[in-house]
Every structure is written in structure tokens, then in C-alpha cells.
């Protein structure tokens, strides 16, 4: 049974979004369900700080054994931090998807995007 924390927001592409203490800055990663479907993660390609993305635009890729998948930005905005730890330890996405396996922090350009995300109940329903 995949873990779906109550306090996060989600997309149908299996990303999670967490509000941070800094106004309009959110943290983004992929869900426990996603990492378990992907299998062992061997590489995460993340963007440079300062890059800007539209809603659901690809911001990077993740490679599990043999399979590369695109990562989509759940909000429009500017990348203000990336998790450098994934360069050397991509498996953190498997072992701690909601913690040390976070991917990017984004300064949201349109806070209304956050209202369009799924809550935990809706995401649980999506993954059945």
C-alpha cells in the first residue's frame, strides 16, 4: 500500500507538492506510488536553479532500471533550489520519496495553480 501523506498536494502524474515556510515556494518530488512503479532509480536529471517552467512542462527526467520517464512541473514558476544529493544518491527517491528524495523547490508564479492540485483523498482514489 503506497504512502500518501495527508498534508501534501498531488498531480495525476504522481508528483507531490509541499508548501514551505517561504511564501509561494513549494517543494516537489515524486510519490511513493510512483517510485514503487518505477523500481530502482539509478539517475535523476534535474534543472539548473533559475530555470522557469510552465504548468506541467517537463523539468527533468528520472531513470529507473532501463526506463527513462519525464518529470513534470506541477506549478508554473522558477526553480530556486535542486536536490544535489540525488546526483550521487538517486536511490533516495526510493528510500525516502517525501523527505531526502525531494527534487526541486519552485517559486510559484501563479499561486492559483496550487488550488488545482489533488488532495490526499483524491490522489488515493486515483491510484486505487
Amino acid at each position, binding site marked *: 500500500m503506497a504512502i500518501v501523506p495527508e498534508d501534501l498536494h498531488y498531480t495525476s502524474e504522481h508528483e507531490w507538492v509541499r508548501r514551505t515556510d517561504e511564501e509561494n515556494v513549494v517543494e516537489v518530488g515524486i510519490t511513493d506510488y510512483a517510485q514503487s512503479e*518505477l*523500481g530502482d532509480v539509478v539517475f535523476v536529471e534535474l534543472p539548473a536553479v533559475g530555470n522557469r517552467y510552465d504548468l506541467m512542462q*517537463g523539468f527533468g527526467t528520472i531513470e529507473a*532500471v*532501463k*526506463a*527513462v*520517464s*519525464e518529470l513534470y512541473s506541477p506549478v508554473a514558476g522558477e526553480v530556486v533550489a535542486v536536490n544535489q544529493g540525488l546526483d550521487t544518491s538517486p536511490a533516495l527517491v526510493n528510500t525516502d520519496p517525501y523527505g531526502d528524495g525531494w527534487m526541486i523547490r519552485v517559486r510559484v508564479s501563479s499561486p492559483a495553480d496550487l488550488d488545482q492540485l489533488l488532495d490526499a483523498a483524491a490522489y488515493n482514489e486515483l491510484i486505487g
Partner: protein
Amino acid sequence: MKPLAVTWRLIVTEPADGALNMAVDELLAEGVRSGESPAFRLYSWSLPCLSLGRNQPAVGRYDVEALRSAGIGVVRRPTGGRAVLHDAEVTYSVAAPARAWGSARRAYRAINEVLLEAIASLGGAAHVHPADQRPLTPLSTTPCFAEPAPGEVVADGRKLIGSAQLCERGVLLQHGSIPLRRSRALDRLPVELRGLIDGRPAHLENIVGIAVPPERLEEAVSSAWRGRIGAVEPGSLTEAEVGRAEVLAGRYRSDEWTWRQ
């Protein structure tokens, strides 16, 4: 389970170089994204070619001059995984909506079942490598064929088919190599480089016991595809698609892409 109630395009292309082969696979995925039928393609290589996995380290790891002298090209795939030497083989690719099988891993399994059936119809005994608990080896220059991953087709203790995937904007691209016999190009390489690019696949002719002409394997795979996945409509690329593939090949010919890491 037949994943889509549609007729698949069956495309068999002429031997091409690495860049054009990768470009045609990308083109077929692009087509599915814009509403074309899903495609199943069979192809080969006009010259031996080392294909690198999208994210594997490569800069400074291979003696490019020695490869060139041996007549072996280099291309970086859009898909994951590790290096494969393509030579005496049949290569397949599948471009379909990502939802077709529900997940990339289920697609991998379903496509491998087709390939297993094709190999069995030729008299070869192969099976799917089971999941194991070994610690994962990180991406490296270890050749693709040197280590079977769970779900891959193996025979006689060696990997028989090496496959890789890309899931991008709702479309799954999977392609893979079915080596028929050992590449003679390896004999033109220094020993250390030979070890770096040859994962010592099982080779179909060893599994079946006789040399298998590529056309026979292509027919066996197409037939298994029709039985397990769905109807196919044999066809070829349109003139516009050929032109588009030439454009897409630009990326695969560039050092910026090939030697990106």
C-alpha cells in the same frame, strides 16, 4: 491481454546508421503523440554501432579513435540503460500510448512475452529473468548485455535480448536488440575496449542451434505480435516522415548529445 483495440503500424525499415535509427524511433513516438496509430518497427544497422544509454557516463570512457578505425559508430539513445553493440541482430521498437499497458514495467513484461513466443517458435528455450534481491548496480560503462535485469529475456545463463524505454509526454517508446551471432567487428578492437562494449549476449544462433536469418526472426516476432498484442498493418514511412526523421537525426549526430556526459 491485448492492450489497445487498434491496428498497429508494422514498419520494417532498411538498414540505417545509428542516428537515423534513433530518429525514426523518436519519429514514431512523436506520431503517436499527435494521434497516429501505435507502431511496431523492426530494423537493422548499416554499420556496427555502439549505442549509449541516455544517462550513462561515456566521456573519456571509450577509445573513440579505435572504434572509428574498427568501423563502429557511436550514438546515444533517447532511452535508458547501458551500452549495446548493434551489429548482427534484429532490433525492434514499439511506440504506443503510455496508458496502453498501464505502466512501463507491465509494457516491458508484455513485450518480452511476445519475444519469448517468437524465440520458442524458432525452437529456442528462453525465459524471463526473475526479480532478485541483489543490490542495484549504478549506471556505468558495464555493457547492457553483461547483466540481466529482472524481467529481461535470458537463455543459457546469458542475456538474450536487451531493451530500454522512454516514457515522455504520454507516449511509451521501447526498443531492444536481439543479437543473432557474435559481432565480427569486435575482432578489430583492442582487447580492453572489446571487454568494455561486448556484454557477451546469449546469441540467438547458439540458443536455437543453427544460424537464424534475420527475415525468419522478423516473421516470427511479427506473428507473435499479431497473436498477443493485436492486428498489424504492414507499411512504410511516408515521405514526410522520412524528411522529419532526417531532421530529428541531427540531434543524434551531434557530439553535444552523444557526449553529453
